[in-house]
């Protein structure tokens, strides 16, 4: 049995991919010395010439990744913090997302962009953000945001094998916080599939990343009070797994969606719309969302950061209200 952290799961998977396929290479800022989070520790020495430091210029990091993937390599880019990915937004939105569509699949991009996202690390405005909603809005880009180390391994492997651009989101607070015995643990290897992680009859919680762990902690606490939650680990944010979302919503008739991202325009709105359109008659209560408040994310001081971030207490409070509805 081996217990690995999220960070170790990412590093081991990159190592394995580099070892298995000569076409795989890594590029990004500070990767040759292991990266600021150490996700590429030791890989530059082990795979000479295949772990590349780039200038601090995100548009070209993404654009060069596009070109290399177009040629047939399997590039994996790292954007050091998700907060800085927007300099590459044009390359992802205007180019990568529509490469296959505008050539009817004649040209395609087997590429991955990895990036650490999320709060809870006192990172202030530009080291804490949730950026998924901007990118999940783009048909043509797959957005993956696992929660457990075993899924990080299987889904990063799937992302590297995918012939499409995949934005692979790694919650930085969970890098070392979340550990798991990965042998025998459930591991989703299909992008586009969510998993019902816990079943209960009273309400259904949808979450991803750090919030999935907070939701599971809230569910555990609520169970002590006789409130049983179904918890769905979304895993892929685009395309959404509508089938599992609807199945889990119908199972309890009460839906709570949790994300760190700010409320308005967040992914919760899309999930709520899917359920409202297709499972309205199975609902027993209005859909609830627990999300960051609509202020520019995220304040630096611990008190304000905690105020901003959803957590197990806020989730449990919302869940109790919903269960009592």
């Amino acid at each position, binding site marked *: 049995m081996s217990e690995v952290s999220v960070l170790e799961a990412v590093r081991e998977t990159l190592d394995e991919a580099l070892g298995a396929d000569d076409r795989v290479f890594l590029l990004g800022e500070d990767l040759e010395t292991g990266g600021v989070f150490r996700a590429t520790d030791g890989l530059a020495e082990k795979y000479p010439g295949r772990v590349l430091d780039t200038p601090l210029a995100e*548009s070209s990091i993404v654009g*060069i990744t596009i*070109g290399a993937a177009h040629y047939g390599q399997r590039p994996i880019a790292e954007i050091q913090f998700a907060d800085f990915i927007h300099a590459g937004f044009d390359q992802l939105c*205007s180019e990568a997302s529509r490469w296959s569509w505008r050539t009817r699949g004649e040209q395609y991009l087997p590429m991955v962009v990895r990036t650490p996202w999320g709060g809870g690390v006192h990172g202030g405005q530009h080291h804490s953000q949730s950026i998924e909603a901007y990118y999940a809005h783009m048909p043509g880009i*797959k957005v993956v945001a696992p929660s457990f180390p075993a899924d990080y391994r299987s889904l990063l492997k799937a992302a590297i094998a995918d012939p499409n651009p995949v934005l692979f989101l790694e919650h930085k607070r969970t890098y070392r916080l979340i550990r798991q015995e990965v042998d025998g643990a459930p591991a989703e290897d299909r992008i586009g599939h969510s998993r019902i992680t816990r079943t209960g009859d009273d309400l259904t919680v949808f979450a991803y990343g750090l919030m999935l762990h907070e939701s599971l902690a809230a569910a555990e606490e609520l169970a002590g009070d006789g409130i049983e939650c179904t918890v769905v680990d979304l895993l892929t944010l685009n395309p959404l797994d509508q089938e599992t979302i609807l199945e889990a919503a119908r199972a309890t008739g009460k839906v709570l969606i949790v994300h760190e991202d700010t409320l308005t325009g967040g992914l919760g709105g899309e999930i709520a719309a899917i359920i409202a359109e297709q499972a309205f008659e199975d609902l027993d209560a209005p859909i609830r969302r627990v999300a960051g408040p609509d202020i520019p994310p995220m304040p630096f001081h611990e008190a304000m950061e905690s105020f901003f971030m959803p957590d197990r207490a806020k989730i449990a409070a919302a869940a109790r209200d919903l269960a009592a509805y």
Partner: protein
Amino acid sequence: MTASQTRVPRSSEMLHDYLLSEEQLESMYRYMLLSRRLEERMMTLNRQGRADFVIAGAGQEAAQVGAGMALKAGVDYAAPYYRDLGVMLVLGMTAREAMLNTLGKLDDPNSFGRQMTSHWGSVDRRVITQSSVVATQLVHAVGVALAAKMRNDPIVVFASCGEGSTSRGDFHEALNFAAIHKLPVIFFVENNGYAISVRTEKEMPVPHVADRASAYGIQSAVVDGLDAIAVYQTVRPAVDQSRRGGGPFLIEAKCFRMWAHSSDDDHRRYRPREELENWASRDPIALFRSRVEEDCLFPPEDLDAIESGVDVEVRAAEKWAFDQPDPVGEDALGFVYKDADDV
């Protein structure tokens, strides 16, 4: 300020190696003329309400054809921009395909009617799919060159743009990265003096785009973009050097935009009258024709044969293209994601 030093070898001995055969010179004329005649028909179709949009390279044919002929078609990669019909014809696009593209037909090999006119792309011809966003393609070219270098493939990547694109960050990021890794990329800037209506003096404080090369340690050259032979003799040695590991080049061709920015633009609103009236004296095709006649580059009677051949080809291509199927609404669906089983 002076133009940055031309470091592409252009001594008489080197030029001798890059002399064009009579056959190549005839091709050069034919490609330039085919590009012009196609665009003239496209613009006429637009004015007749039969083609939605035209964005042309008229006036820039010498730069496009001269540069395109310096490449190994089907081997080298190209990331051209939307005015580069001349480049595309040299790389193998046919008049029929150009007309399919103009009409947005289902069988247009560039984008099957999904993109606006003149947004090129072709797997067979190694043309990287292009968008309307300028300068993004320069970075893609760098990525292709990086990948090819990793695999030790002896290819060159041709990345072209207008001078307007050189204001964007992607231009600078592309040059910087290509120079750091000594990648085989030919950055070819067709400087036609205008970014739609904005003149170069409001685009940049230096007289030549090529001046910017020194900031990135890139070899550069300025060439008369109205002279197809000079363009070829500048680009070809750069391509050869780059293929041998000599790193990237920035080549600026001084061009003249003959028409408005696009079929939706009226350049009389912002261009001096005398500039437009004097245009004929700067027509690269007319200049080439006079040179053929004066210097006897090839038998002058061949000029007429080429011209009548091109006219027939363009008319036939247009007629044929109109008979090809249009997409239906639902043809917009599909291929959002590449099917993993289709790789």
